[in-house]
């Protein structure tokens, strides 16, 4: 243990608790940020990291607990207040205006735009660039800068009002390896000047490489810490193993009873994806030689941290995104060149995760939304003329079967709650007799009971012979219903492995890009 008491911590969080309706996002969090230390924060989606950053940066007010800055108890009223106190955050998504120059971006939100203000800003920019040991041209347009340089400007912006704590939220997610290396140098230099840095990441190896101290959050609680001493003295393998156990839990907590049934050995291969690649905008492909083959009635889970290519894979399978290379085969037929509608006609369905954006037409009624993918088809249209009676009757049946909470089927779907919208979308896809269904995070935003019902339905359909690709960030769901599981990491899909109890640790290692287990 380091003798932390000798140094005044830059920031101390004591017993911080924050609850939202139905979920405790942060529960009795104790966190100490020391000057000259990089503190890595790890945890799954929804572990409470974002809330914690929100509290530190003044966006979220805690329900209970105390915040001390340099030993003094304070309240952080607003993001501006946090900046004034020297706590700056660099978010995953850029806050810079791409069409403005660097200097104009830095002056945004600062009250003065006068000549004097600009001169002072130039001086401040120079000062911070020297601190970071980077070169920043104040007159270049932000949109023209490389992502790494943009991030340096973000860091300058975060430290503009004072250098105390720098919070980096997933800072390497969009960087090239070279950009990431430069970031590491900048962070090292900042801590050598006495700043405290909070480093939030999904990637275990980065957290261990860069962090002097590692804290792991799970379900709103701190479940473990790796001290600087432990980081130094233990072997990398040992630390990795321990941290993975902290992130994903010691034992499988997922035996929810819906466990997948045995596949019959005689089931034939029905759906195959063969070396499918999709180029991205950046240097890395979005999908890199993805391959898998499924038997009839099989459920393949695709695990992974959001943004590793799962959405792109789903869109490629559905036909919403073009394949640059490779083949998709449904029942011995190459379908990668078929349109979305042609694939739907062959029994391939896609349940999107973007329910507002593409899954529904908000102003239209629930009734019309349940037939959205069957416009013009019998029995809902005859000779192209709409038959409202048939549509409403069908909608009423689905609303009843799937327990959608709504006054009636003519209500605009946008007035429903998120969970009920998702029920409508699932009802729409499950009502057809599909061959293959691709689910992208189908239980997102649903409560526990509805989640269980949805999982049971997916498993039931599989038993009836529907082949399923089940994309989820929730390992427990994958373990509950899938026969096999593969992990997406940076556009690559791992070899599918059979689901067995206690597989979470192995998956966790794959999800974080760590090869050790």
């Amino acid at each position: 243990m380091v003798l932390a008491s000798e140094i005044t911590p830059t920031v101390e969080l004591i017993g911080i608790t924050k609850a939202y309706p139905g979920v405790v996002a942060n529960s009795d969090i104790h966190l100490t940020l020391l000057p000259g230390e990089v503190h890595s924060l790890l945890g799954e989606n929804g572990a409470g990291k974002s809330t914690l950053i929100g509290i530190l940066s003044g966006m979220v007010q805690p329900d209970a607990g105390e915040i001390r800055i340099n030993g003094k108890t304070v309240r952080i009223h607003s993001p501006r207040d946090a900046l004034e106190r020297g706590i700056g955050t660099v978010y995953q998504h850029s806050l810079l205006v791409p069409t403005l120059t660097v200097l104009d971006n830095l002056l945004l939100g600062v009250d003065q735009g006068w000549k004097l203000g600009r001169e002072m800003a130039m001086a401040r920019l120079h000062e911070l660039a020297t601190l970071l040991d980077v070169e920043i041209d104040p007159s270049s347009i932000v949109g023209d800068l490389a992502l790494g340089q943009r991030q340096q400007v973000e860091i300058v912006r975060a430290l503009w009002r004072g250098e105390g704590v720098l919070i980096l939220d997933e800072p390497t997610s969009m960087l090239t390896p070279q950009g990431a290396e430069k970031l590491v140098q900048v962070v090292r230099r900042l801590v050598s000047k006495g700043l405290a840095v909070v480093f939030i990441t999904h990637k275990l190896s980065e957290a261990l490489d860069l962090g002097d101290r590692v804290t792991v959050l799970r379900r709103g609680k701190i479940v473990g810490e790796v001290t600087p001493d432990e980081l130094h003295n233990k072997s990398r393998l040992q630390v990795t193993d321990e941290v993975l156990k902290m992130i994903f839990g010691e034992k499988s907590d997922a035996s929810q009873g819906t466990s997948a049934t045995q596949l019959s050995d005689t089931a034939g291969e029905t759906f195959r994806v063969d070396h499918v690649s999709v180029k991205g905008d950046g240097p890395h492909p979005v999908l890199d030689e993805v391959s898998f083959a499924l038997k009839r009635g099989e459920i393949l889970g695709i695990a992974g941290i959001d943004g590793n290519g799962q959405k792109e894979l789903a869109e490629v399978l559905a036909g919403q995104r073009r394949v640059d290379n490779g083949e998709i085969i449904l029942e011995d037929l190459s379908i990668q060149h078929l349109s979305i509608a042609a694939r739907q006609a062959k029994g391939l369905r896609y349940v999107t995760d973007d329910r507002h954006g593409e899954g529904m037409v908000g102003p239209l009624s629930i009734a019309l939304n349940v037939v959205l993918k069957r416009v013009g088809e019998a029995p809902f249209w005859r000779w192209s003329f709409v038959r409202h009676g048939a549509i409403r009757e069908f909608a009423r049946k689905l609303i009843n079967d799937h327990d959608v909470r709504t006054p009636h089927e003519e209500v605009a779907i946008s007035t429903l709650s998120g969970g009920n919208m998702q029920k409508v979308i699932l009802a729409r896809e499950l009502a057809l007799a599909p061959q293959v269904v691709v689910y992208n995070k189908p239980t997102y935003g649903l409560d526990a009971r509805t989640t269980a019902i949805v999982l049971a339905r997916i498993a039931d359909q599989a038993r009836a012979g529907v082949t399923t690709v089940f994309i989820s960030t929730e390992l427990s769901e994958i373990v509950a219903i899938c026969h096999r599981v593969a992990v997406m990491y940076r556009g690559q899909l791992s070899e599918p492995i059979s689901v067995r109890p206690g597989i979470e640790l192995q998956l966790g290692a794959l999800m974080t890009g760590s090869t050790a287990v």
Partner: protein
Amino acid sequence: MSAPHDGTTVALAEHKSQTESRLERVSRSMTNALIPVVGAFIIGGLLLAVLGRNPFAFYGNVIDHGLIGSLGRQETLIRMAPLLLIAAGLMIAFPAGIWNLGTDGQYVMGGVIVAALGPELAPHVSGFVLFTILFIAGFVVAAIWSLIPAILKAWYGINEIISTLMLTFIGLRFSAFLVKEYFYDRETTVPQTRVLAVADRLPRMFSSRVHIGLIVGLVAVIAVHFVMRNTAFGLRLRIVGMNPKAAIHAGMNMKVLTLAIFTLSAGFAGLAAAVNISGVDGVVRAEWNPAVGLLVVPLVFLARFHAASVIVFIAAFAVFKVGGESASRKADIPNFMVLFMVGLLLIFMALGEYMQLRSSRKHQS
């Protein structure tokens, strides 16, 4: 600029509709439409008063010459025909989220070909066959002309607001070139096409000057209204307008739909020209630019794409245009007064929309 079928407004409108009776709905939409009209009249009247004219006398003259007088009433009905057909085209494009602002160019392109073709065909075919050929020609030529912005939009995602507006200028120059270079009548001194003989023009009704183009226009508006609301095709177009991503997700063929929206919408503008030329004008002069299409745009929005309202507003507009021309002459003010009133109408419409949105937001919270 957002899509014309604004999601929030529609959502609120459709949401409200569940708790309202049909009568309440109709009266509410009439009030919503009338307030901007009354507002425009009041401000227009103030301007007239400032100019030293009697606003009551002016408006009285408008009604008198546009509606009450027999000649004026006939002229109003004649003017309505092309306006109704242009409106029918816009009632397809706007709910589908396509801003076809190039109806003026489409109108002129269709009109030039019809004007050139009419006198050539008239000696060989007559009556119903002649008009059918001319109507189809006007429709098809305008539709082909609209393929330029349609393809730019469907394949390259190029904003049709700019491309359709700009193509109007090109269409005007191009049609002038066609008249001067190929279609001109050698027996006249001004560059213009040959004249379609009065005997070969559209049949007239009720022993008046009003030709059957009015019927064509009314039928088109009602048919479009019905198709957009009651057929699978109409629903597809509305889905494209409300949420294009959902349309793609549902497997709709966006390229084909986009081409259909453009060509149908432009086709009606071309048909409008065909009706007007074979019914009234009988000839196209070089540099001809009636510029009626853009004036129909606010009317179609004000009517919220509803056939009955579209017909009422176009009738009112035609009364005002016809009556306003003679009222302006009488009051010795420029004819631009009518355009000025249309501008005021637009501003009040936008204000009305804003107020409605604000009150319904307050209602929700």
